[in-house]
């Protein structure tokens, strides 16, 4: 579908995309965590751009982060130190995990893109005091942005951004729904391109394109699919090959619980309450990241529900090596699935590793088992 081409082009060369945005006098703020308050960044007139490692060889980052650090953190630092992120006008570091926490300091001490902010969201999301704090943090962040641009962010600006992002989220959710209903309607690599593209492209343009794609997909007569229905659960899945490998082995991803997938766009921002409280509500209520806490079995229950809703034949845990929060959750989440007789596969991914053969072996074996 040619409407998806711009997404493929965007993700293939994010630096080129960034250059295009700068040409139109856009200013870019980079972030790595899906808790970054994009709506505020956007309302301030910045272009929020999610950063992914270019998977180049690590050499400069060796002087700052040891080898037992996840490839996302090391890789993005490497890109920065090597000058590949010079298109940034600033970066925002929401609180995520221990690795990002330290990256934030190392970044602050070794780079200078202009704007820099630590947005230290609470790790707890299920108490009134935590939510009140989150709103305070958002308020402070808004003030920091206003200082940077030299004028206030008007309520109208904020409302417009919230509206825009809700449009984007609604349409991404709709595309996922259509995929689950008829997996043959869109290929895994195309859906991947759409979601990843959505994290880096101009948001106004994006909203338009997504609406067009949804309309086209809804009209489409989907080819039947007998592929095994798979749920992907994990953190950052920047490995586009995994989708084609799954499809070649006889499966198809019908839903996910990924930081670079559903977790990032799920949940609309309420429009009938104070905007900062509304943002708080959405970020606190959306599918939770394991680096946050809102109950002891929330993720396990959510995954089980997801598997049931989407009639999953199997679940694949695509975990990034050295990602502690996800690795701590894995055993109990697997147990939840085991009890419900849902088979699962555990993959340990690493940006620097290109072991396709090893991945194929596991995926093929798993498809055969389910």
């Amino acid at each position: 579908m040619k409407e998806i081409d711009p997404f493929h082009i965007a993700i293939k060369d994010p630096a080129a995309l960034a250059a295009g945005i700068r040409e139109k006098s856009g200013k870019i703020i980079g972030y790595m965590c899906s808790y970054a308050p994009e709506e505020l960044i956007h309302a301030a007139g910045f272009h929020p751009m999610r950063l992914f490692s270019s998977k180049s060889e690590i050499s400069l980052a060796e002087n700052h982060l040891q080898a037992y650090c996840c490839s996302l953190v090391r890789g993005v630092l490497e890109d920065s130190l090597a000058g590949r992120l010079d298109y940034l006008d600033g970066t925002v570091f929401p609180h995520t995990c221990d690795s990002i926490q330290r990256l934030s300091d190392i970044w602050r001490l070794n780079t200078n893109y202009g704007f820099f902010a630590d947005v230290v969201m609470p790790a707890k999301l299920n108490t009134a005091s935590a939510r009140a704090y989150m709103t305070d943090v958002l308020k402070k962040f808004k003030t920091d942005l206003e200082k940077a641009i030299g004028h206030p962010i008007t309520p109208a600006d904020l409302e417009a951004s919230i509206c825009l992002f809700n449009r984007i989220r609604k349409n991404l959710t709709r595309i996922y729904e259509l995929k689950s209903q008829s997996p043959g309607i869109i290929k895994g690599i195309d859906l991947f391109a759409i979601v990843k593209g959505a994290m880096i492209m101009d948001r106004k343009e994006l909203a338009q394109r997504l609406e067009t794609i949804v309309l086209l997909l809804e009209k489409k007569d989907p080819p039947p699919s007998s592929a095994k229905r798979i749920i992907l659960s994990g953190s950052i899945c920047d490995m586009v090959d995994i989708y084609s490998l799954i499809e070649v082995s006889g499966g198809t991803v019908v839903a996910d619980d990924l930081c670079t997938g559903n977790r990032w766009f799920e949940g609309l921002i309420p429009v009938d309450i104070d905007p900062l409280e509304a943002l708080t509500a959405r970020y606190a209520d959306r599918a939770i990241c394991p680096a946050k806490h809102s109950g002891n079995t929330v993720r396990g229950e959510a995954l089980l529900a997801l598997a049931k809703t989407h009639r999953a034949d199997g679940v694949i845990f695509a975990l990034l090596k050295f990602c502690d929060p996800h690795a701590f959750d894995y055993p109990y989440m697997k147990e939840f699935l085991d009890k419900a007789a849902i088979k699962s596969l555990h993959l340990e991914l690493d940006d620097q590793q290109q072991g396709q053969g090893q991945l194929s072996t596991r995926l093929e074996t798993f498809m055969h088992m389910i």
Partner: protein
Amino acid sequence: MDTNQNKDTAKEKEKDKDQRKIKSAKKMREIMTTYYLEAMTARENNKKIAWITSGGPVEPLIAMDIIPIYPENHAAMIGASKMGEDLCVKAEEMGYSSDLCSYARSDISCAQVNGGPIGGLPRPDMLVCCNNICGTVLKWYEVQARYFNVPLFILDTPVCHNGYSPEIAAYVRRQIDEYIVFLETVTGEKLDHDKMTEVGHLALQGQKLWQKILKTTTHKPSPMSAFDAFFFLALIVTLRGTKIAVNFYEELAQEMEERVQKGISIIPHERYRLLWDNLPVWYQLKWLSQKFSDHNACLVADTYTSAWCSAIQYIDENKFLDSMAEAYTRIYLNIGVDEMADQVLDMIHLYDVDGFVMHSNRSCKPYSFGQLDIMEIVRKKTGIPVLMLEADMVDPRNFSLSQADTRIDAFMEIIKQKK
């Protein structure tokens, strides 16, 4: 040399060794034994047990007569007894990645198999988790909350990258109140605020004594080493706020001052003074201590044990609960890397050290990430040599003795050349 001279030299060596021994160590062992025994028999005495993180707010527990247990302290014991490998392997067989913190892995499997040097920890009635030290404890305690099916309280202390903001202050302060409510709900008892004040007073006193003890090592030669500090640390962590801790540290402080007056050095010939960074390599303390001593080098201070007196400046005895918020949030691991580097530089100057030994601890990301930057800052600003030792605090599989041996030798050669 004839045999009589040999015998005399041997006798002198024995006498010398005996003089160097820190006498208070025996008392310390007794206190810790009693502490663990009391914990094991808590139920019989109708006392409740709380498992709490090493940076967690223990004072209200003491004030409410709840016995605090520190899985981290227990994990250190597991490491020191060289039982870490087995327990870590068991955790991996349970599905926990081998890249996860070895304290957490050991504790999680230990709870299931009742392993470790004391046959496992007594079951908790509640879990108290403060994430000021890391995000791992949050996940670790969630695992245990599911396993033991007991209430979990989380004191969420946001990272102070650039100072202690009013937002953080308000949030943490509110949580202190929530914490008290939690404890009162779980125990069915009310907090006695007078007792709380008393405990706060003792906690501050204990920390000041600990600080005094650590400062005695500014003396040349040093009366004790970081390895001793690792050992004596346990009380200020587990029994902070009790009279027992205060009494013991008074004795230890006195012994240290006597040693300073008499010029008793912990190592036979102190020629070089070093600073240690990060947690100890629990299963190789004896070897490390001997190795450096053989080079006439004494690790006179470390950033880990000093973390238990760095909050003194924030504590207000008269408003203990209030000041707890700041005291627990602004600890060494919860600040920016640049602020950590400043504290390291202060210690280098205060203790007048010739070299800096950094343990790149695979298990502890908040402590280890940032070390490379701190190393550069130290090199630039002080010119002293820095050694990085790659290891793990409890899992020996991540440590190569021959590698460490070579590195330490090379490092000491550089120091000797410089001095």
